[in-house]
């Protein structure tokens, strides 16, 4: 899980063009949206693309998005649970 979280941080920085951040700047449980990293709705779409491209996972229910993409750890949990 720890390795997946580290990989995800690198992928998120690359996919979302967050070059001003380093992986260690993103806490495992830090909120990604609004008060946390300040990601927006376009970033949410990019995270969906990231899940599909890198892990072959399609978000089955879009309403799950806010919970799945809450933190890096919650994304890692979702990948672990749904990766074939």
């Amino acid at each position, binding site marked *: 899980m720890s390795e997946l979280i580290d990989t995800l941080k690198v992928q998120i920085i690359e996919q979302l063009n967050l070059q001003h951040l380093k992986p260690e700047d993103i806490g495992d449980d830090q909120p990604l949206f609004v008060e946390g990293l300040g990601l927006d709705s376009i970033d949410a779409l*990019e995270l969906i693309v990231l899940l599909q491209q890198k892990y072959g996972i399609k978000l089955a229910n879009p309403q799950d998005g806010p919970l799945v993409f809450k933190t890096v750890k919650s994304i890692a949990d979702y990948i672990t649970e749904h990766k074939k």
Partner: protein
Amino acid sequence: MTNPVFVSSYITLRSNKILLNGEVIFEAKEATTLNFFQAVYDHFQLNYPKFFKMDNLCKTGFIASELLLRTQKLSETYHPEQIGIILSSANSSLDTDIKYQASIATAPSPSLFVYTLPNVLIGEICIRHRIKGEAACFVFDIFDATFQTDYVNLLFETGKVKACISGWADYYSSKAEAFFYLVENTGSETTLKNNAENVNRIWNNLNT
């Protein structure tokens, strides 16, 4: 007879060099265009993380507006609705359009898609500088000082704006170019009037 409006200040970004009112304020000869953007961001400590999400046309325009307005906070002088921005461009969003088209082959990128309109260039600057007045981005083959000055002067004559960023921003195939100038209805006898002759003179001097 209408009251004259004036060019308060102007800036150009071209060939990895930035001039403010004709004086070089930054240059990075050996840098690639993308490294140049980063170097400008670092040198002037722009401190605006959204910069990294922008496409290259927006980065070009953002840097020009940021440095033009660095010592002149429009929001402290004018209401947001009194500030306009009228720009033109040759290649518009073509550079990003091509990248987005390429992304369709695998997974269309939402963050590329949002920059496939030249008006986004205007939007990024408006968000940053709280501009809510007349805003437009026109596409021309070359910079047309007559069109720019006629359009902007009409905005002043009709009371639509009290300050306006006018100019040119272009990015295509790693070539960035911007020429922004601030127009206001206050000035002295020595301040340049906003007419095609003066604007062309600045533009041509900067091109030599």
